[in-house]
Structure formats: C-alpha cells, structure tokens
C-alpha cells in the first residue's frame, strides 16, 4: 500500500485532471439548460493541475513500481523533463480555452460545449500519461486516449463538409498508424520479453537480439510516433485535418499533441536505446539500430517536404499545417545529435514554437471570425486596415522564419549550436537553406497584408479587449525571448532530467 500512496502522490496533476473531467461531465449532465459556466470548470481544472505541476516540479521518481531492477522501475516516470512538457501542454490548453471563448465556430455550438471541454480534458489526460509512460502498454493506452479524443474534436463542429472529411481522414490514418505501432510493440515484446522500456534497454545491451526484427519493430513504432508529430512520410493527414478542423483544435493539435509526441519519441529513444550519458553530455547509443541515420533522413525529409509544400498553399491553415510539419523537422534535429545540448535546444525551441505558432493561428482565427477569409489572397490590405493584428501577425511570422530580434531566432540558434557542436555541418546547412525557403511563404502572407493593394475595400478587423489581451500575451514573450532569453534557457536547462537506470 505504501507503494500506492507514493505513486498517487507523484501523479497528483493527473488525478486533478481526472477529477476536473468527472466534475465537468457531471455538471454538463445536470445543468443542460445553461452551460455558460462549463468552460470555467475546465479552466479551473487546468489551473489547479498547473499548480500541482509546479509544486511537483522538483520531484522525481517512479510511480506504480513494477520490477526491481537495480532500483525500482515503474510504469510512470515523473521527472523534470516530463514536467516541462506537461507544463507546455497545460499552458497551451489554457490558451486554447481562451481561444475558444473568442472563436465564432466554437461559440456556435453552445449546446454541446460540455462535450467539447470534456474531450479536451480527456485528451490532456492522455498526453500527460504519454509524456511520462515508460511501459509500452501504457504508451499505447495513453496514445489511444489522446488520439480518440482528438479524432472527435477534429470533426466537432460538423458545420462544414470539410470538417467531417477531416475527422474521417484523421481517424483512418490514425488507426492504421496505431495498428502499425501496436505491431511494432508486440515484436519488441517478443524480442525482449518485456514491455518495460528499462528492462528492454537491459536486454538490448546483451547482443543476442535479432537485428532485423528489431529494426522492423523500431520502424513500426517510429511510424506510430511519427504520425503524432506529423513527420514525413507519416504526415499526409496533417494538411487536410488542419484545414478541416476548427481553428482552435488545429492550433491545439499543432502544439500540444506535437509536444506529447515529441516527449514520447525522446523518452522512448533515450530510455530504450541509450546506454549512458558521458561527461560531455553526449548520449551513447546501444549499437543495435542506427537511430541517427534514420532520424537525420526523416528530419531532413520532413522539413524539406513541409517547406516546399507550404509554398504552394493558399489557405492559411494549410500553410500553417505544412509549416508545422517543417518545424517538426527542425525539432528532430535537436534529437539527432543525441546529446543534452540537443535536448536543451528542443526544449527551448518548443516553448518558442508554442508562442509563435499559437499566435499565428490566433490572428488567423480572429481574421476568419470577422471576415470569413481563410485564403491568403483575401488578406490583401488587412495590414493597413487592422494595424494591431497586422503587426502581431508580422511578428509571429518573422519569428517562425527565425529572424532576430524575435524568439524564433533563439530557437534556431540553439538548434544550430547543437548541430555545429556535434560537427554535423552538412545537416546544419540543409536546415538553414530550408529556413530561407520558409521565408518565402511566410513573407507571402505579409506581402498580401501590406504590399498588395486590395481590389475592394478591406473590412477592418478590430479585436475586442479579450482578443487584444490574448494576442499581446503571445506577442510580448515572442519579442522578449528574442532579446533576453536567459530565463527561458535556464528553465529548459533545469528540465533535462530523464529518469534513467543509473
């Protein structure tokens, strides 16, 4: 029993989230007349979870101990790395709740608003466990919890044909990839006799595994995770789903679900395939599978494909979808160096990505709310009629390109520092050339907002106080972290601990 108490102590944020979910569903059932306060329950639940997370930030340990293997190993690892990603998810979720307040699409469905937030909380719970899971079964379960909620959310508004098409596509692609992943998991279990990542790590260190089967299993699992982080060639669902889903959910998928996917990928590889971390912070991989080459190839493919496809997009959501694919490619670069420096770069990049990507989606949503435009060609002249949103959008887009003095530059800088430190110059050059390509499509939006003269009078988009504050909350750190990034890096620096065997 002591074990159980200890475990529950460690997963307080998850418990808070579950309670919030139950309260929300119950309230939704009882008060089916007036549902105005439902979002506030979700918001309260998220805030309390966030407080528990912060209180837990210095705690680390295993919950639900399974085996005793040179120390007690459990199902759930609570460490600073996990807490970092959970905080990112919580911050994104809170912002998305505020996004939903100002989203016309979401406000139209007041009668089903309870389900919307219930699904959102369910998805967050899935992501939380995914970030911490160190057992293949738990990984699969939490992945499914997260995915199933997101399938429904993607098609939630049902107002447009695109919407249900998006949800269906998402579901079909998702089930295939999770099927593949499950197959990979079963192979890995067959090879090593365990589902616990630490035990698998021990088994792989003794060189008697069938290399071919192992490679096959790894690639299948990578396909499942690659789907979540929308890495090429598993990205095909992304543009359609991002275009079809309500903007709030698109923004959410592009940040939170990607964060959870990345946390899973990093933890999976670090826990399963790294034998030790040397004094210079480099991760020594067990020589059973060439993760480095596979990930380099995937990341270059992902960013190049994302960037070059984004050039041709006219719909802002599709464009941002491809841009988020490209950013997944950049983020993977932080992993391929297999060092603490690379991990630091990923963490720094993710915070910045959260700010700038959500910001760009928010401005796109506010414009679509007012004018109904999602086509970039309809943005002509908007910068002049709506100066505040125009300037904010310029800042977010410039940050997405990665130009100083915005935060996006710092994110890229840390990635390239990690790459140059690992002497992977060719990869760095390819990534940098990619960011030149990305300049073209991001600036295209700016071009339409400012340079191209509108054919008819452009409708001015005047955000109300709530929206203005929301945009400002995202703009200020995007600029501030560009010139003073010390607090950000310090936070990331203290969040590098991934619980290992030693």
């Amino acid at each position: 029993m002591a074990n159980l108490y200890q475990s529950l102590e460690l997963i307080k944020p998850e418990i808070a989230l579950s309670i919030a979910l139950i309260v929300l569903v119950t309230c939704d059932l009882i008060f089916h007349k007036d549902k105005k306060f439902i979002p506030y329950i979700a918001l309260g639940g998220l805030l309390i979870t966030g407080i528990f997370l912060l209180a837990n930030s210095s705690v680390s340990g295993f919950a639900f101990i399974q085996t005793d293997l040179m120390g007690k190993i459990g199902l759930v690892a609570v460490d600073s790395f996990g807490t970092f990603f959970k905080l990112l998810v919580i911050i994104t979720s809170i912002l998305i709740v505020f996004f939903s307040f100002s989203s016309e699409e979401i406000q139209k469905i007041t009668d089903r608003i309870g389900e919307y937030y219930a699904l959102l909380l369910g998805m967050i719970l899935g992501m939380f466990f995914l970030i911490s899971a160190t057992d293949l079964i738990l990984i699969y379960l939490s992945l499914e919890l997260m995915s199933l909620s997101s399938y429904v959310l993607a098609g939630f508004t049902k107002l447009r044909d695109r919407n249900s098409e998006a949800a269906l596509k998402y579901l079909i692609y998702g089930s295939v990839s999770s099927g593949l992943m499950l197959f990979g998991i079963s192979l890995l279990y067959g090879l090593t006799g365990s589902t616990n990542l630490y035990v698998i790590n021990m088994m792989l260190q003794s060189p008697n595994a069938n290399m071919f089967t192992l490679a096959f299993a790894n690639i299948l699992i990578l396909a499942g995770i690659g789907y979540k982080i929308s890495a090429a060639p598993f990205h095909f669902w992304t543009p359609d789903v991002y275009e079809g889903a309500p903007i709030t959910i698109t923004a959410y998928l592009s940040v939170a679900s990607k964060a959870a996917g990345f946390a899973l990928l990093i933890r999976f590889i670090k826990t399963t395939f790294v034998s030790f971390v040397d004094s210079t912070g480099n991760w020594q991989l067990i020589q059973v599978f060439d993760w480095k080459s596979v990930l380099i190839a995937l990341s270059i493919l992902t960013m190049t494909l994302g960037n070059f496809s984004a050039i041709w997009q006219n719909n802002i959501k599709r464009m941002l979808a491809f841009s988020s694919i490209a950013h997944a490619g950049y983020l993977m670069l932080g992993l391929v160096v297999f060092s603490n420096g690379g991990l630091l770069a990923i963490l720094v990049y993710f915070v910045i990505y959260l700010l700038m990507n959500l910001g760009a989606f928010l401005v796109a949503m506010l414009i679509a709310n007012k004018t109904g435009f999602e086509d970039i060609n309809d943005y002509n002249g908007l910068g002049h009629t709506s100066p505040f949103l125009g300037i904010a959008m310029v800042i977010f887009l410039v940050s997405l390109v990665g130009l100083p003095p915005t935060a996006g530059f710092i994110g890229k800088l840390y990635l390239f520092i990690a790459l140059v430190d690992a002497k992977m110059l060719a990869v760095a050059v390819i990534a940098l050339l990619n960011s030149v390509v990305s300049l073209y499509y991001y600036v295209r939006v700016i071009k339409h907002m400012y340079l191209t003269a509108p054919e008819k009078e452009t409708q001015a988009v005047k955000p109300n106080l709530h929206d203005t504050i929301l945009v400002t909350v995202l703009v200020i750190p995007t600029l501030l972290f560009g010139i003073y990034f010390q607090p950000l890096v310090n936070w990331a620096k203290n969040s590098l601990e991934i619980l290992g065997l030693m």
Partner: protein
Amino acid sequence: MIGFPILSLITFLPVLGMILILFIPKEQPKTVKYLSLAITGVQVVLAIILLANYNYNLAGVFEEKSFQFIEKFTWINITGLTWLGTVKIDYFLGIDGISMPMVLLTAIISFIACISSWTITKSVKGYFALFLLLDTGMMGVFVALDFFLFYIFWEIMLLPMYFLIGIWGGPRKEYAAIKFFIYTLFGSIFILLVMIGLYFSTTETLADGSKILTFNMLAMMNPANSTADGILSILNPNNLRFIAYIALFAGFAIKIPMFPFHTWLPDAHVEAPTPISVILAGVLLKMGTYGILRFNYPIFPEITRDLMWWIGMFGMVNIIYGALVALAQKDFKKLIAYSSVSHMGYVLLGMASLTTTGINGAIFQMFNHGTITAMLFLIVGVIYDRAHTRGLYDFGGLASQMPVYTGFVTVAFFAAIGLPGMSGFISEALVFVGAFGVETTRVLAIISTLGILLGAGYMLWTFQRIFFGPLNEKWAAMTDVDKRELSMLIPLSVIIIFLGVYPSGVLDIMNTSVNTLVNLVVNGL
C-alpha cells in the same frame, strides 16, 4: 571621455523615436516627419561629438583597450551547463578608425534621406517608424563588437527594408522586395554558421581566470584564444577555416554586392523610393565591405593573404562589368545602380592590396561612394518627381531649363568619374596606388583603370543625353530645384568638394587603425 553612453544613444535613439511615432495620431503626418528629422538631426550632432572627442592615435582593430567610447555589459549569462560551460554574451559596443567614418556616414546619410522622405504621403507613420528601425540596425552594425550583437543588428535591417521597398516602391516593388529579402537572408545564414563555428573555437578569459567560449569578435582575432579542437580553431589541424572564410566572404559579398551576387541590386534600386535608394547605396552596401574588413581580415589573416589576388580579381570584375552594363542602360536609376556595382569594385581592389594606402583608399572610397551615390540618387529623384519617368532618352536640353540643378549634377557626375578636386579622385587614386604597388594585384590594377575610362564614358554620355541638345517640349514647364532639394544637395556637394581638397579630414581618422589592421593581416599578431 564623455559622461553618457553615447554609442548606445546614437544607436537606439531611432528606436525611441519609432515608439514615440506609434503614439502620434495618424492625422498629424507633419509631427511624425519633424520628429524623425529631429531624431536623425540629433544623430548627426552625436556623430560630430564623437568625432570631436575621437583620439586619432588609438588603433582599435583587435585590442579592446584602444577602442574608444566602449560600453560593455553582460547581457546573457547562463551558468551551470556542465557540458557546455557558461554561456555568456556581452552587450559590447565601441569604435575605432574603421567604424568611425562609417558611423559618420550613416548619420549624415540618414539625415539627408529623412529630408528626402518629405514627399512621402502614403501611411507616413508606418514609413518613418520603419525608417528609424532601419537606422538603428545600420548604426548598430558599425558599433557592435560582439558577433552575436552584430548579427542581430545585421538582421534587424531586413524587415524594414522589405517593407520600405515593398510598400512605398515602384511598379515591380513586390518582386524587388522579396528578391532583396531572400538574397540577403541567404547570405546571412552563412554568416550565422561561421559565427557559431567561431564561438566553439574561441575562448575568453574571465576576471576569475576561468576560460569560457565567447562571441567576442576581438577575442576571435587572437590565435592565443583558440580552443584545441574547435572546428574553426587555428590549432585544430583538421579545421574548416578555409570553407568558413569563403562562406563568410560570400555572406558579406551579397551585400556589397559583388559579382555574381549583384542581381538583386538593380531591382531593389529601381523599385525603391528615392530616400531608400539613398540609404541602400549610401550605407547598406558599405556593410558588406565593412564586414569583410572587420571579420574576414583580422580573424582569418592567413587565408586573406592567400586569397588577395582573388579578392582583387572580383574587384576588377565588378569595376569593368558594372561599368559595361551601366553603359547599356536606358533607365537613369538603373544606370546609377550599376555604377554603384562598379564603384564598389574599387573598394574590393583596394582591400586586396593589403597595403595601408590601398585599404585607406578602400575605406575612403566607401565613404565617398556613400556621399556621391546618395547625391546621384537624389538627382534622379529630382527629375523623376517632376517628369515621372527616368528614361535617359526622354530628356534633353535640361541645362538651360534647370541651371542650378545642372550645376549640382555636374558636381556629382564629376565626383563619380573621379575628377581631381573631388573626393572620389583621392580615394580611387589611393586604391590604384595601393594595388599597383603590390605585385599580386598589379595587373588587376592596370586592367581596372579601364573602369575609369568607361565610367567617364557612361557618365558624360548620360550628361549629354539629359542636359544638352534640344529641349524636349514636354518638359518646358519643369521647375528648377526647390529649397528642400537644395538642403540635401548642398551639404553633400560641400562634403564631396571639401574632402577632394582636404582628404585628411577622413583619412586621418582611419590611418592608425588601418596601419594596425594591415600589420595584423600581413605579419600576424
């Protein structure tokens, strides 16, 4: 020396002005214009204060204690990364004889360009806000002594420039603006990579004796600060210094613009509004050559020595090619743009000689090209404002119609040709003397003299087409230059003629530093 942080003030004053402008109501464009004028005016005053307090005997270049007006504070300090060590970035400003003329030039050209912007009527607030942001970026590039800080200033200029060309430019502005943006970003990614490589190859000793990696560009110049295994460290036998040199050079060469990276320039110039052309030619192009002198030369002296013929060769190609293409132009502004390419070639040729005379000539040529070409673009602006065309064959006989204007054009054209008595003559002469005196660049210098001939050819031919012959009746009502235009043309003419007869005014500022730089490159530290 001076009781206040003068370099920070001269750099960030425009940003302050930009913030103030954002609070001025849209209905008061006059206030916006006068505020910008005041800000750039104060900048000129500050630049003069700098010059008055400048010690001509201190060299700078690689030695922190002989830089002047230094401001150095810790900006970013991240400790406790066991595997990366402390990450520390300084806010580090200072000037020496190489940057002082450039600071002066930036202040003057910004002020003139601000007067020239008076005719802007479309979203005045936005224009001047961006203009001032650009001003900060330019000033910052010349005063930064930390590579990281330098890079930030270098990149800050891109976006304002994109908008200034793209919103207030001519018919093909969108194309020209994005071309400028992509070209320069392409160049700066190489600078970024070299910056990171140098970071991992250079250490700096802190007050407590510990060594940390650094972005300090003065530390990068001293081989004693090299790490043992940095990829750009001179101590590492497998270093990539040669590739890094080429990458860095290419990054700066795009800005100069050096053949074959020059194709963005004519587009940008033709489409940009007059004041932006003035800034572009007057200051922005200088950043390329300044960057080479500030980074390539002292950080990689051994490679510079090996490549001096190549640098001179590219200089020669720029001179001849630019002049030949200029000869073929039918558009006045495009002609000036290509003459710019040609004139920047002299800078490269002078730099390639690796002699004090040659590099003095090169930096002086940077300054002179800044003032002369600024004036030439203003001259184009004057007739374009009146006639709304720049076709060289659309005019004729304007000499009698606009006598005062013709007088100023004569000054500017003769200065551009390099007539004795004008500043351009001195700098080009120095460049040729420098390049001729060294065996490596002698042949290049001889061929390059052809450029002077071609220059005289296209300039005089242009003069003839516009000012002589029968007056085109269409322009019978054209008025001569007004007071505002005089207020820009007179100071520039005065500078050009004054430096033509008294070149020491600028040469003395740079002489000590250039000597030190040449000594560093030729003999090592």
